[in-house]
């Protein structure tokens, strides 16, 4: 087990932050479902997570030049990307309510799953401390 409680949760802590950010982005899409010229956005969770794992895991890259990419395991501030519309609207809005609702519910479930993982880790830690 890791020495610090902060790193104990590992990727789940980062995943929870990403899930919360994604929930916010999709909530913005749903809120602007009737706003003209609004472009729906989303976060590429998989890409961001693998980026995090590549940098936070033991095998981080050695930087020998100041122009090398930062590999300190930080999520940084990745840009939300625009969704590719499958039904263009006359007013320039690219929100598909049904897709967004499904994505929001999916994200909420995954958020709860991540919470469960962290919950389990806390329980493990607690039983280790108590020793019962």
């Amino acid at each position: 087990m890791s020495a610090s409680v902060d790193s104990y949760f590992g990727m789940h802590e980062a995943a929870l932050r990403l899930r919360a950010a994604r929930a916010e982005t999709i909530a913005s899409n749903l809120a602007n479902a009737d706003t003209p010229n609004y472009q729906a956005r989303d976060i590429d969770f998989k890409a961001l997570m693998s980026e995090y794992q590549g940098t936070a895991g033991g095998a981080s890259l050695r930087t020998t030049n100041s122009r090398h990419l930062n590999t300190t395991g930080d999520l940084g501030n990745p840009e939300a990307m625009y969704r590719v519309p499958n039904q263009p609207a006359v007013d320039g809005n690219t929100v598909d309510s049904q897709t967004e609702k499904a994505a929001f519910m999916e994200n909420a479930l995954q958020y709860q799953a991540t919470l469960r993982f962290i919950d389990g880790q806390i329980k493990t830690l607690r039983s280790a401390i108590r020793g019962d």
Partner: protein
Amino acid sequence: MSMFKIFDVAGSAMSAQSTRLNVTASNLANANSVSSSIDQTYRARQPVFAAMLNDESGQSGMGEAVGVQVRGIVESQAPLQTQYAPDHPMADENGYIHMPNVNVVEEMANMISSSRSYQTNVEVVNTAKQLMMRTLTMGQ
């Protein structure tokens, strides 16, 4: 916790949609309000929605929530309906009455659309609240 912003965003959307519903109700209520002069005739109103973007570039990074605002309410410039009804008590000296340019079918569609959007945002708030509650009781 960035999730608190969801309440602001969904709240702004609910407020905008209820404004839209109000305007629709006003249009439907006045769909048959005849008058004897063009200037006094009711004209259909429509709210104008706009996204509340944070920075001037219009691009936002991860997790930057974008709410909705009602920019204003515009009156429709569609031609009014004029009807020849000399027996009508509101008829002008030539025997014409002027009726509003409210399209009832369009307004009904608007009403359904805004009520559905409102419902969606209520669901979003409920889900976000549930997630926050779960997060608060984490490790208990």
